[in-house]
């Protein structure tokens, strides 16, 4: 009980919200796709990664296939892949635009996706072509609920 209270306080301080199941973390102020990628918006630049929920469902990531800088990405379409537990899974872009930067560190440290999904494990940065697309993404509360419902349904 006491540790749960501490966890809530710590979560509050770090701007995380801890799901009731005490499981995957969700960060406020990010936007989320229903394919479990997150977006951090800074002007017209979008930093993209996969969520804590996603990395947990993947298992230990051993390889990240990154796109080329300058490549085009489209909302809802795949831009790369990750490999974990002998499974390759595609990663979708929550927004459309052009790839401005890729996280090269993932080439040597793919496990950052698991260890730090919202910070050091970011995957690409995109120069957005259509800011309106952000409206179709979920906020942190909606995404938390989405995860709960998805996990409860099975």
């Amino acid at each position, binding site marked *: 009980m006491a540790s749960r209270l501490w966890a809530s306080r710590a979560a509050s301080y770090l701007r995380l919200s801890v799901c009731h199941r005490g499981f995957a973390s969700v960060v406020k102020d990010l936007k989320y796709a229903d*394919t479990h990628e997150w977006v951090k918006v800074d002007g017209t630049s979008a930093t993209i990664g996969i969520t804590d929920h996603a990395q947990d469902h993947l298992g230990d990531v051993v*390889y990240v296939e990154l796109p080329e800088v300058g490549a085009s990405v489209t909302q809802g379409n795949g831009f790369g892949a990750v490999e974990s537990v002998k499974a*390759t899974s595609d990663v979708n872009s929550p927004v459309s635009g052009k790839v401005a930067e890729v996280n090269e560190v993932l080439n040597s440290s793919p496990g950052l996706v698991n260890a730090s999904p919202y910070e050091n494990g970011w995957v690409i940065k995109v120069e957005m072509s259509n800011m309106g697309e952000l409206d179709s993404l979920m906020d942190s509360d909606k995404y938390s609920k989405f995860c709960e419902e998805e996990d409860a349904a099975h």
Partner: protein
Amino acid sequence: MRGQRSLEVLKMGIMNYSEAIKLQEKLISDRKLGKITDTLLSLQHPPTYTLGKRRTYHNLLVPESELKSMGAELHYTERGGDITFHGPHQAILYPIINLRDIGLGPRKYVENLELLMIEFASLYGVQAHAGKKGETGVWVGDRKIGAIGVKISSGFTSHGLAVNIDPDLNYFKHIVPCGIVDKGVTSLKRETNMVLPSEEVIHEQLISCFARVFGYINLVYKDTYQ
């Protein structure tokens, strides 16, 4: 949401690797469009070496030209996993299923694939177990009996698993199987004390294990696919 989930089972016999890839592409396309239900391919390949997405070519221990003279092919794939060998008397399952429908992420899906192979081995009194972290697959002691390599695209699966029933294990000498240096490979034939039934029966049992572990109630068998 278990319900009366249907699984279409395609028994393809010995199928060339390229043909199997083409068939899976067609099935995934049809599955994504909702034209077909979840589908399971049951087959074998002629002697074939395959590499996964990471192209771990360094785990092929002989020149590619030598493979040809052995009568084996080499294929580059988009599946996860390292280098492996497929050949006659190795039972392969390629599930083309929608993981989102059944609420499985990649890790749980692969765990289920391991589980079904373990259950299958137990039918023959063989105590197999899942690999340690980072060693996905199914082992008897420190000998590998079942391999996994899958591709998941928008939640739809392709590629799958391979269980060594009684393949020519010498073919594995030309690779570092699955990239793991100090462990060997084995087969059901080597590990069991029981007499093996016909391959038809064996494949049927493997399919049953798949259906049971994944909760498919209704199986529909097909010999060909248009």
